[in-house]
């Protein structure tokens, strides 16, 4: 689809692109910090930024809740987290809003922005999200919940239990599967026996759709519809979003071990950020010069955020024994 098919205004499209690009550039920074030993870990959403931004834009971030997973950097930034917030997480700083330096990098959460933190243990956020959505339904808040996981992680029992309950209660929520073809080294064919995971929705009495997450407008419209359905009391939707994993699984992995050079090269030729830039140009939303100037501006922004984040204090070691139980 064309970007403009999304029905978003030119300004909104530019704004969307800035978020996509910022997420990409910030992630590149995180890899640099990792390589020079300033952070010990990175797990990245490169190849999913366009889909994530399109997805997140379909929600109302001041009232809807997001229960993300570790690749959702672009999405949590749309929801309100800043580059500095994320950098503080990677550097394990005391003011990291996700966990105050307690969890590994990329374990996003933010009380101020309705982002509920998750555990590394995959798919536990799915049942938790049903609780969030049930609270919204009962409290009559008209808010809705979004939760995400990877396609490999759909093999967990929690995936099923959550969807089943969402079907029973017609919960106001959207479940997304970000299918990047691999669970660490394990390809889709060894993870599940179908080509389209969104068909599982039928088995729960909820809506289901597969979208190409490299296609901004298609993705945005699908999530918009899902969000509308949730908000209007029509129940939940399961969306399988096809994306890429341009990088290794994480900084502890090397995907060249288990993927062919051709496979990797082909993926890079279809890099979603590049594709979006082509579309912006061809649809005359932005010119080459404007793209370049956005890039420069973001570079400066990320540099500054990096500097600021690095200067922030580490958590004091007496923090180890705080926030374990309710304090009287």
């Amino acid at each position, binding site marked *: 689809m064309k970007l403009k098919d999304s029905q978003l205004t030119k300004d909104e499209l530019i704004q969307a692109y800035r978020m996509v690009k910022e997420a990409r550039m910030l992630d590149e920074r995180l890899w640099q910090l990792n390589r020079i030993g300033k952070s010990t870990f990175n797990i990245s959403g490169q190849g999913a930024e366009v889909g994530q931004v399109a997805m997140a834009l379909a929600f109302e971030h001041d009232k809807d809740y997001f229960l993300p997973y570790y690749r959702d950097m672009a999405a949590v930034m749309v929801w309100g987290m800043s580059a500095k917030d994320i950098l503080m997480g990677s550097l394990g700083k005391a003011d990291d809003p996700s966990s105050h330096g307690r969890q590994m990098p990329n374990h996003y959460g933010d009380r101020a922005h309705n982002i509920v933190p998750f*555990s590394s243990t995959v798919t536990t956020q799915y049942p938790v999200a049903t609780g969030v959505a049930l609270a919204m339904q009962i409290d009559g808040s008209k808010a809705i919940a979004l939760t995400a996981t990877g396609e490999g992680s759909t093999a967990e029992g929690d995936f099923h239990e959550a969807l089943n309950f969402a079907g029973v209660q017609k919960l106001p929520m959207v479940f997304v599967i970000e299918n990047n073809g691999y669970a660490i080294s394990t390809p889709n064919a060894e993870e599940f026996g179908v080509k389209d995971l969104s068909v599982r929705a039928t088995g729960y009495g909820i809506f289901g759709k597969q979208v190409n997450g490299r296609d901004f407008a298609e993705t945005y419209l699908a999530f918009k519809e899902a969000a509308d359905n949730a908000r209007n009391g029509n129940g939940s939707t399961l969306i399988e979003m096809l994306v890429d994993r341009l990088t290794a699984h994480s900084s502890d992995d090397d995907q060249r071990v288990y993927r062919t050079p051709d496979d990797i090269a082909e993926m890079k030729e279809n890099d979603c950020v590049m594709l979006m830039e082509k579309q912006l140009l061809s649809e005359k939303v932005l010119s080459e010069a404007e793209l370049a100037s956005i890039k420069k501006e973001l570079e400066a922004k990320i540099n500054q955020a990096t500097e600021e984040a690095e200067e922030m204090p580490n958590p004091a070691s007496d923090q180890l024994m705080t926030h374990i139980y309710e304090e009287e």
Partner: protein
Amino acid sequence: MSEKSYLEALNLAITEEMRHDEGVMIFGEDVGGVKGGVFGVTKGLAEEFGDKRVFNSPLGESEIAGLAVGLGVMGHHAIAEFQFADYILPAVNQIMSEATKMRYKSAGDWISPIVMRTPYGGGVRGGFYHSQSTEKIFAGQPGLRIVTPSTVYDAKGLLKSAIRSEDPVLFYEHKKLYRSIKDDIPDDDYTVPLDKANILKQGDDVTVIAYGVMLQFALKAAEELKDEFSVEVVDLRSLYPIDKETVLEAVRKTGKVLLITEDTKEGSVMNNVSAIIAEEVLFDLDAPIKILAGPDSPSMPYAKDLEDAFLVNQADVTKSIRELAEF
């Protein structure tokens, strides 16, 4: 004051807290509707509070736990019922990875103020999977509280505290006590602290620490032996974390301690009590720390003779106290 059974006291605690706080919700398998739980603990609640706040969940324990966590995150005090303590096992991951770590992992930004109730214990011919004491599985997870009432008074007061607590609380109810013990308890509001053991009977010769049906045996034994020995009886109540202070004080007093659990012996929560005593007050002891517990067999069998052979009984308790007193 009115006479209530342990089960009625639990039902009252929930009823009162639901009246008092609109955010309180309760659910689990067969918890809602007219059935009100397979033991009847939640009977009448759906009728009074409606099927939004009191409902049947589908048969998935991980979802039950996760649902509670999500509701908790949103400010509800969710009460999740697991139909039997044996069936909490599919929810271990949600409980350990999410519920018990929510506060700590966000440095207090998010909390999980939930109660997870479940009936435990044997002696009802329930066989392998309706008799287990699964509390030990969780009794090493900071961030979590595990409590169990062993008296009618505590059934009400402890559950009210659990519901009001901002911490995740695993609330074990002994299924044999539901209808077997009755007592006069206050009609109005009272609570019992979640983190304190309770000295039920003062004594000078032997300290017995127990919970559940074993505590009832201990009380009876203390009574039987009262002309011969003076027995201090402590209700452990908080199974995790252990109330060190009360335990150590009670042990120091007599120098002889008997720990009783109906759970299998190796690895039971009483080992945690023993380890604290052996580290903190070893030289106050006049006898080895005796643990009376079930046998190390994989679960409680169904056949009557086997079940009887498995269970610690009144005679075992009385005999162990006597032996220790005479040591």
